[in-house]
């Protein structure tokens, strides 16, 4: 196990550096940020000055080594857009994103697994049909529809919850609910599919012969066998959330890392982009590692 972790850490570190390299050089190919920060009418002279200050005039390779040098001192550079340390900007947003992702995914995990398993247990039954139908509609509907319709109904007309923003736990209800819908639909379908197979296995027969309750047959015997693809897809959806839920963030005024990333990319705020990718990549790497460990915990036949 230690050996596995060690190897994994080395490989992950290498790929993190690779990712940094990739992002650093590729992002600079996406154009010069100067024009975006200065007024349209700014003179060439002030443009040059701007480039000078932000080190954009040096050859790319020099810029990269400077960046890496600073990074070694845990200095991610300053945001051009906000003129404060990029890492502060990112971490501030990431805390929100992480909370949102955790809350949403824990709801998704519990509900999708329960509903999906029950649907699989009664394949073709009314419950299965209804669960499949509505979860699929939810999962394929444009998220901003759901968000705006929810605001109009629950906030403006009924006044149950605030339209948007942060502050109280009431503010979390709409964003989490809207964010919940797509991963829920997807995970539910995966659970359902792989549970159908698991429930028809011979060991389920053994369990029945042992007189195990249906609940344990589903959630103890079949589920664990069905979980491999499920946690993989959950991981994918969680990664998507860690990368930020742009639509939800911008509609609900939620200060997460997603909109920050988009704005920074469009504004060529490279330091923030780099810092944001570093932070989310680290989170995703760790999550994937946990998932890989989970595979071998769930299924003792899997060994690395």
């Amino acid at each position, binding site marked *: 196990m230690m050996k596995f972790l060690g190897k994994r850490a080395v490989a992950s570190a290498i790929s993190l550096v690779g990712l940094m390299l990739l992002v650093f050089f590729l992002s600079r190919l*996406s*154009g010069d*940020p100067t*024009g*975006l*920060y*200065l*007024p*349209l*009418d*700014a*003179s060439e002279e*002030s443009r040059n*000055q*701007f480039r000078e*200050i932000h080190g954009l005039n040096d050859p790319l390779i020099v810029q990269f080594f400077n960046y890496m040098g600073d990074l070694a001192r845990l200095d991610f550079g300053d945001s051009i*857009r*906000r*003129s*404060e340390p990029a890492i502060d*900007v990112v971490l*501030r*947003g990431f805390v*929100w994103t992480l909370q949102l992702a955790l809350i949403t995914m824990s709801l998704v995990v519990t509900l999708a697994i329960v509903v999906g398993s029950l649907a699989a247990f009664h394949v073709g039954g009314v419950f299965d049909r209804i669960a499949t139908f509505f979860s699929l509609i939810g999962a394929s509907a444009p998220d*901003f529809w759901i968000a*705006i319709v929810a*605001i*109009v109904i629950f*906030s*403006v007309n009924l*006044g149950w919850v*605030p*339209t*948007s*923003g*942060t*502050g109280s736990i009431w503010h979390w209800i709409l964003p989490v609910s809207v964010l919940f819908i797509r991963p829920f639909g997807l995970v539910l379908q995966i659970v359902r599919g792989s549970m159908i197979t698991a429930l028809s296995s011979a060991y389920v027969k053994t369990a029945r012969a042992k007189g195990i309750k249906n609940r344990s047959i589903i959630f103890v015997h079949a589920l664990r066998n069905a979980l491999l693809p499920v946690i993989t897809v959950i991981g994918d959806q969680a990664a998507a959330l860690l990368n930020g839920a742009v639509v939800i963030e*911008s*509609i*609900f*005024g939620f*200060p997460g890392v997603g*909109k920050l990333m988009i704005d920074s990319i*469009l*504004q*060529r705020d490279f330091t923030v982009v780099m810092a944001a990718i570093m932070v989310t990549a680290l989170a995703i790497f760790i999550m994937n590692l946990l998932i890989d460990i989970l595979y071998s915990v769930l299924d003792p036949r899997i060994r690395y």
Partner: protein
Amino acid sequence: QDNSVTVVLSEELEIVEPCSATKSNVGRVLFQNISETVTEMDPATGLEPRLAESWEDMGNGTWRFTLRKGVTFSDGSAMEADDVAHSLVRMKSPAIACEIGAKFFGGIDITSNIIDAHTIDVTADPAQPILPMLMSTVTVTPSDTPLDKFVDQPIGTGPYTFDEYARGQYIKLSANPNYWGEKPTVQSATYVFRADSAVRAAMVAAGEADISPSIALQDATDPAMDFSYPNSETVFLRIEHAQAPLNDRRVREALNVAVDREAFVGTILANGTLLATGITPPSTIGYDADLKPYAYDPDRARALLEEAKADGVPIDTEITLIGRTNNFGNVLETMEALLGMYQDVGFNMKLEMVEVAEWLERYAKPFPENRGPELIEAQHDNANGDPVFSMYFKYHSEGQQSGLTDPKVDTMIAEATAATGDARAAKWKELFGYLHEDIIADVMLFHMVGFSRVNERLDFVPTIRTNSELQLSQIKFK
């Protein structure tokens, strides 16, 4: 709640820097609320005193400003001439990219001379006849404000003080108890940020916010809450004259008459949108109300193209129509409609919608190589009443975004810039006419209208200035 207001803005403030207060979202929070200017431009009455009580022209480009006495910054220090001088230096400081310095004082050297604590001479080189008006953009900050970095806790002389900025969430202002002027009704204000117009409208409707300075046309559905105002933005298509077939006047005329401008108003664009003949709105001096927008005449457009074609103008060359995404509400529909109209009269044209960075590459000099004929949609904002910068940057051969190289235009700009009073207005008017009718410089489209949604409990009517500022002290309760 009673005497505090919540304002919902369309995007978060990246910086809270007074020297960039002409950026519209920064301006709506800081401008004249926290940071006051030397003079103040009122669209209704013209130039008014603010921190300066009076000013006079000393000749040779120098103006003398007499400052108001008894004004203190929110940190307690008195506002004096050295603060103004420092602010002028700071806005042009090379170490920070101040919007005001670059946008209004680009290419101008500003020096100041402190006469006494409340008198200051300001000299512009080259001389600026409209210097007092330019001073209406200059926000005054204390003399110890750093020259090399933006502030994150702005200090000003205004009726409000800057309390708190919870990044990503809100900004809070509260009334300044030591304000020199009239005490405002609104005692505190919270600014929040929502990117989606429908949400902003919903927030005001749900009573969570009091003012949303800008909402989309289609969200402005409630006459009791929604106000329209001319927002000083002008939309046009920039033609780069060097590229064939756009170098032919007939083609440019065809581009103008092929557009059914009136069809846009009240449909894709708001009622109240004006058809443009020049690049600045009617509130600017020299605006020529007699110029007529090109009437929709597709047959004439076709005829012009035929004619040009007969003369060997390569009108079959594909022209790229470039639009900027999210430039204004319904920009995509507008561009699609334009494209349809052009294709209808026989232009070989394609549409490209691009994000702002890419748009800038195409719009500002140096233009990309091998670009082919391009028609670039742009929106220009001039709320300060004088067309000087608009004209220089958009039409002078040296102008950053100019598609022209016309010596006549260059001289006309130079003359108008140097002139004052009525002569100045006349010269600008002449230039507007020349650009619109003689050389047909661009495809002028619309002077735009913005929408605000205001909670019914407020007594507040948005104006043309609402595009860049939101003076809380002007808000009253019903």
